[in-house]
């Protein structure tokens, strides 16, 4: 039956079913990637050991138990949580700013996090009620949330004009980068190295607490995003159009930017500034799923999680026994997928 023979309703149904199928395939791919990530590493653990060890930790010898529960599982799960959070924050940023080049990092969130982390590394502040190991992520989080607050103030002050928001965000990025460079100039060689490592982004520094916090953040914020998928879809038709439909865009922008700031701040504060996912995850999802935010919002989160999970697998598998920081690999994984999809779309046209 040729598509021309179908009614508009049926054709829409067919497209929607196909997109649901695509999203199911993406979920399946995500599970496969998680399995791959869990199976990778120098210890000779096969799939049976891993599944058995997850169901019954006592079935494994001490060192294998620690490898599975303290090394592999937290690293693999934080990849999913951070990837999903950045993917979700990415799609919301691009839509709310109506800018395909925007990502959560455009708003200065990650640069501020790097500045906070650098301050923690160089000045080694002692904060009350906090163990030493928590100071770095807490400083990164506070600075990231601080930059989010600044952006929100600017949004309010400017009446929500999106160019102002983007320009202010970029200015904030440059300011934070300059201050970080200034700190590096003063810091010891070891501290400079630490800052560089932190900036690249690395999943191995995450434990169960970090997995729990980032996951909780994502789970709490996702329903708010899902509640506004219709409005966000409408916004894709243009700001003036959305306004004419009675939507208070300025108010919407405040809520969305609040969500983005919190998501991105939690995503980067533990693992470092893992770029690129918040930018390209949403684009890959858009190429696969179209503009309907009912599917695009969860799809973008899945894409983000998938890219980071695959990058996590590669970071362990490329040079066995050695870790290549995952921040180096996200673009290496994401760009070929992205270019492939772009090329495919060109052919289709």
């Amino acid at each position, binding site marked *: 039956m040729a598509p021309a023979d179908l009614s508009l309703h049926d054709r829409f149904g067919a497209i929607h079913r196909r997109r649901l199928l695509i999203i199911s395939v993406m979920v399946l791919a995500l599970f496969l990637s998680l399995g791959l990530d869990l199976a990778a590493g*120098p*210890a000779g653990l096969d799939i049976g050991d891993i599944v058995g060890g997850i169901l019954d930790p006592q079935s494994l010898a001490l060192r294998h138990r*620690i490898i599975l529960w*303290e090394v592999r599982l937290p690293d693999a799960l934080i990849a999913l949580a951070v990837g999903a959070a950045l993917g979700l924050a990415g799609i919301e940023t691009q839509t709310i700013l109506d800018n395909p080049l925007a990502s959560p990092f455009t708003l200065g969130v990650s640069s501020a996090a790097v500045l906070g982390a650098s301050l923690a590394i160089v000045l080694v502040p002692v904060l009350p009620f906090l163990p030493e190991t928590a100071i770095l992520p807490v400083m990164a989080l506070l600075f990231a949330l601080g930059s989010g607050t600044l952006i929100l103030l600017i949004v309010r002050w400017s009446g929500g004009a999106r160019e102002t928001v983007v320009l202010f965000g970029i200015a904030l990025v440059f300011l934070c980068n300059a201050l970080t460079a200034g700190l590096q100039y*003063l810091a010891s060689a070891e501290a400079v190295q630490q800052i560089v490592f932190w900036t690249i982004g690395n999943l191995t520094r995450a434990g169960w607490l970090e997995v729990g916090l980032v996951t909780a953040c994502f789970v709490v914020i996702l329903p708010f995003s899902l509640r506004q998928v219709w409005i966000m879809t409408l916004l894709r038709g243009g700001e003036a159009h959305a306004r004419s439909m009675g939507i208070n865009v300025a108010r919407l922008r405040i809520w969305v930017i609040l969500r983005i700031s919190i998501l991105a701040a939690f995503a980067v504060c533990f693992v470092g500034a893992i770029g690129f996912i918040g930018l390209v995850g949403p684009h890959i999802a858009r190429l696969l799923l179209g503009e309907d935010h009912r599917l695009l919002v969860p799809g973008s989160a899945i894409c983000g999680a998938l890219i980071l999970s695959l990058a996590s697998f590669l970071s362990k598998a490329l040079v066995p*026994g*050695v870790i290549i920081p995952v921040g180096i690999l996200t673009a290496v994984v994401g760009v070929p997928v992205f270019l492939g999809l772009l090329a495919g779309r060109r052919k289709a046209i």
Partner: protein
Amino acid sequence: MPHVMRALFVTGLALMASLPVRAGTIEITDLAGRQVRIETPVERLVISEGRYIPLLAMLRPYDPVGSLVGMMTPLGWTQPNLEQQLFASFPEAKNIPLFGGRSEDSVSVEKIIDLAPQLAIFGLNDHGPGAKNAEMIDQLTAAGTQIIFIDFRADPLNNTLPSIEILGRVLGAEDRAGDYIAFYQSRLETIRQRVADVDVRPTVFLQAHPGRFECCWGMAEGMLGPFVGEAGGLNIADAVAPGPTAQHTAEFLLTENPDVWIGTASGTVKEYRDGTLPVALGAGMTAEMAADSLARYLAAPEFAALDAVRSDRAHSIWHNFYNSPFNIVALEAFATWIHPDLFADLHPEKTMQYIYDTWLPFDLHGVHSATVHHGAR
């Protein structure tokens, strides 16, 4: 050494120093392979890192900072305690101008030229200007400053003694340099001879900056890495690391389960007292504190499960040995840890004390190696 003895010793050396030094020209091939002609005596000298001051002090204990007209970083950056001793005995050391911050790109060539040194002593790859910095080399040479490169860091096994020999010639202290080199060589030879007969090489993981850097940066071909093989061990990072250092997962450690674990401790007594994580050694640290600091770090589950930790074969070594003429102490420590039976007669802490007593005008403070003991915490 008691202080009166030291005073006599220093006075004696000062008398010797007041004898006229023969003037002339010496030819040196430095550690970058460059041929350099130097007019002696060298009366104006700059160094890149303040941590070369102990080396100057070894060669000229009566006047460690004499003719030193500038440096990039002060000694206090890496050894604040030693700097205090230096200031107490040689107050003029407080006024040595600095010509940079903490890295090569922070160096002001103009400032160096303004200091008008005859000679600049830089490290092959320390934190200061490197041998590849052609522009700075040209500028300084044109301004009449000769440059020689020494090295205790990139290839300490091969470059330590040539570096000391060069400095001995430059400073007119060939005898003292020769004495130290003979001492170093005899200690090195002892280890080499015994290791030559070793059948089984225990596996070792050498971790840089435990507690300061995240888990687990290993030293392979670089810095202290080759000391593991020299001391009769098998460095497990060698087989996998693509460069001199690399980051390994905790899983790599748990899977390889090395016989011996060694961390290079860069923590300070202040960090230890604050309860922070970097494993600490050096001035102010007692043997008990050092063992406790190490145990604190190794209490994490991924380390506690290692056989090396469970069998008390986990150790810390003072990180500064990685760029120090006294690195023979680290080699002895590695040897006693990797082959405890073979090297039961070596006492690295005593060797360090001997070096200080014999060659340096300073007192040794703190311990420079430690071993985890079960029940220490």
